[in-house]
């Protein structure tokens, strides 16, 4: 006699069951669930990283500190925490373009960039960015000539990386607040460039 099969429970039902169970077992406070949602939806996000970049663009001594010790310089702005305990900032130059990935899972610097976008966590990105980075970047709309070296950083251990894009031309004398608006999330991962003044 064949065993009765049951359809797999939906993720919504499964998490509901766990949440209920953990609360009943007094291992989880429902207010903690709400607070975590608040933190990860609103309190961390790429705007934090953008402030780091804008400050580095506006202040050359901060930029020096940032490149020398990313963790300490980012901590000056208060963006410390889980998945950002050990930060290395990668400077894009006229001869080097940096881009980040976690091929093995989805490691990403939460305090500066928040939770990663869906595409970053896909098999498509994780598989191809280490094998054909220049081609992948071209698909993102970023065509880099062969004269520029492309460096891919696979964050497979405890270090988390943040790309410091080059400051766009035509922004001389701009305040940090104005520069902030040019910094995109993709430019800090390395899959894009910052916006330009026009």
């Amino acid at each position: 006699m064949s065993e009765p099969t049951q359809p797999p429970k939906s993720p919504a039902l499964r998490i509901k069951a766990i949440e209920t169970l953990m609360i009943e077992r007094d291992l989880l406070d429902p207010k903690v669930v709400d607070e975590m949602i608040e933190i990860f939806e609103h309190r961390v996000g790429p705007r934090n990283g953008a402030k780091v970049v804008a400050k580095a663009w506006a202040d050359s001594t901060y930029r020096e500190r940032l490149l020398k010790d990313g963790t300490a310089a980012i901590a000056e702005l208060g963006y410390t925490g889980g998945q950002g305990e050990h930060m290395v900032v990668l400077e894009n130059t006229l001869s080097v373009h940096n881009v980040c990935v976690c091929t093995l899972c989805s490691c990403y610097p939460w305090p500066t960039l928040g939770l990663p976008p869906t595409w970053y966590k896909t098999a498509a990105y994780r598989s191809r960015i280490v094998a054909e980075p220049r081609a992948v970047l071209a698909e993102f709309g970023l065509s880099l000539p062969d004269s520029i070296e492309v460096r891919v950083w696979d964050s497979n251990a405890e270090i988390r990386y943040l790309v410091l894009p080059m400051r766009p031309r035509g922004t001389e004398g701009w305040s940090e607040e104005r520069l902030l608006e040019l910094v995109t999330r993709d430019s800090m991962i390395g899959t894009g460039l910052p916006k330009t003044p026009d």
Partner: protein
Amino acid sequence: MNGVHDFGGTHGHGPIRWSESEPVFHEDWERKVCAVVMGVWFTGAWCADEARSSMENMNQSEYLGSPYYARWLHFLEDLIVKKGLVTAQEVEAGRVLTSGATGQAGIAKLTVEDCWAFFTAGGSIAMAAELPARFEVGDSVRAKNFHPKHHTRLPRYARGKLGTVVMDHGSFGFSDTRAQGLGDRPQQLYSVRFEAEELWGESAGRREAIHLDLYEEYLDPVAA
């Protein structure tokens, strides 16, 4: 572990579906999974290495076919049982079944105030190595050709490949042993640069290099 999660260099995954911006969570269940995971993880119930190892051990087809947060749901269900916080029957039933207290000693339920405090404190596993660093910046090294069934952070695409140490990150607890509950075995962590040609041969693009953060145990010296 030579699992499907080890995607670097694999083919056939289709186009990268990029979007400029998207909500942090697409479904309510995702937001709940993330929040419950954080709410339990921050108590110290498990370490990230154990969570990654658990995800890697998902049914391989399910890993490939599931939305991202379903993988977190997998390790959540796995670890709350493994750590003795609840029983498998209770997860199935969605409610407490036993009257006795289960649970790992030392798990303290998080308060609302703990959430931001613990998040901003982070969970660094930087710790002094037992032995002095074996390599320095500039050294040629060869990544080991090993194929452990346990959790490891040396991807298949770099095994046996020749690279150059470009950074010494200091010493950290070792993912492979931590994931198995075998202790920290702290050791030096290096950024190692691999030229694209070394990894991909004829298929390599021009002027491309890949950097991996590799524990000392993953590396063998290369004669100068």
